[in-house]
């Protein structure tokens, strides 16, 4: 009788326990979801803020400028690029360290007017942003190179103009040969066996993930600091903007001709070639048109840009 009494639990208790457990599970589930959505919101907000903070880096006279931003916690910036559409999209995803684990994120923050060159996944707390205008032959955009401060690049035997630029930038993680240490990523110009090799005259950069071609120093830096996939996609986006700008300049040349301001530049050819670019190995063929147009605009009756 005693042993039966010991096991006796009334229906009310069973009911209360079941419903109580159900409520507790529901509360834990809701809290977890709430924390998850807060993390996602924070990632999206940070991504948008990073993009917005890049606005002041638009250059005017400067040949380059550098700044940095510091995150409150260890952060991963995922650099994604989409070349679909009229201008393509720069996509940023942010993941931050919280309770010793990386927050999961699938929120894409996109910008049509930004061109970020970095590794697909840049990790750190402090990031340097170095920006430089890209002209082809008119100014097309300002390219942003995002580099975590912990990642140091060492320039070995660069041409004089590159050496001067790196020296003037005074960016802590871009070093010249005399300041380098063994752990730095070495960038060799000409001969050498480094992680990154630049053939300045042949206009290409060779890395683990393959070879990319460039025209001008702005794209050379892009090739050095970005992964091949990011570089190739951003190059297509830049050429899409070149195409649209060439059409605007062509319309402008027709518009100003009404007051006798003539400039006969082959902008349609540039627009077509830029719009059809498939990869960096096509760049040299477009560069011939660019050089021709650049010379013609320089000596035109009315300069278009």
């Amino acid at each position, binding site marked *: 009788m005693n042993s039966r009494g010991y096991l006796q639990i009334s229906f009310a208790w069973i009911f209360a326990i079941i419903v109580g457990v159900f409520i507790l599970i529901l509360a834990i589930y809701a809290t977890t979801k709430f924390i998850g959505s807060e993390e996602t919101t924070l990632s999206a907000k940070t991504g948008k803020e990073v993009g917005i903070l890049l606005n002041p880096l*638009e250059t005017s006279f400067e040949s380059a400028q550098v700044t940095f931003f510091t995150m409150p916690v260890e952060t991963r910036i995922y650099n994604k690029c989409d070349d679909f559409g*009229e201008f393509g999209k720069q996509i940023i995803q942010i993941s931050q360290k919280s309770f010793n684990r990386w927050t999961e994120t699938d929120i894409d923050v996109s910008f049509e007017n930004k061109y970020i060159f970095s590794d697909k996944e840049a990790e750190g707390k402090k990031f340097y942003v170095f920006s430089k205008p890209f002209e082809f032959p008119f100014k097309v955009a300002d390219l942003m190179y995002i580099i975590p401060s912990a990642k140091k690049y060492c320039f070995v035997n660069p041409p004089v103009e590159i050496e001067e630029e790196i020296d003037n930038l005074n960016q802590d993680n871009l070093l010249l040969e005399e300041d380098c240490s063994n752990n730095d990523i070495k960038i060799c110009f000409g001969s050498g066996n480094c992680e990154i090799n630049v053939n300045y005259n042949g206009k290409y950069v060779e890395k683990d993930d393959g070879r990319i071609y460039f025209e001008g120093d702005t794209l050379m830096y892009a090739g050095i600091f970005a992964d091949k996939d990011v570089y190739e996609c951003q190059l297509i986006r830049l050429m899409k903007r070149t195409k649209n700008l060439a059409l605007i300049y062509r319309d402008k040349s027709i*518009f100003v001709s009404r007051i006798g301001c003539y400039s006969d530049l082959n902008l349609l050819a540039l627009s077509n070639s830029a719009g059809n670019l498939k990869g960096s190995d096509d760049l040299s063929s477009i560069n011939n048109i660019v050089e021709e147009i650049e010379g013609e605009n320089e000596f035109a009756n009315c300069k278009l840009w």
Partner: protein
Amino acid sequence: MNLQIVSYGKKGQLKIQQMAFMLMAVTLFFVMVGMFLLVLMFSQLRESASLLEEKNALLLVTKLANSPEFSCGEAFGSNRINCVDADKVMMLKGNMEEYSGFWGVAKIEIRKIYPDNENVLCDGGNYDNCGVIEILSKNVNMLPPSSNYISLCRKDSYEDEIYDKCELALLMVSSEDKT
């Protein structure tokens, strides 16, 4: 004996019913608190989205004049800061379908300050005597505009002589109000 058992069962049923109602009330209370928190969270989210849009417009307007679609470059002599090429902007205005989402803002316009042509909208015909170049205007609720002074330059001619004409203007950028 039988009566006693029936009476005990009814009491028990009543207790269970009371507890069920109590549990439902507690659950409902927490659901309502949760919903209130969600509404609060979403309104804060909308507010911070609008704040970010406003910040974007503020930072964008200071540099927009120097962006390739607007800047004078060397078309009017040497490179100048905050100089907008009016001829180019008029052509951009004609190609705005492609650029509608490009800067992520709802409205971009240039308002001449001197000479003041009031609110006369510029087009190809009245280009010389107009006051406002409306480059982008989306049909959405907008936040108050952020603005920046610029010099608005164009090519003009007088007795077959081509010259550069520059006027003082205000570049205004508004972002969408998401609240």
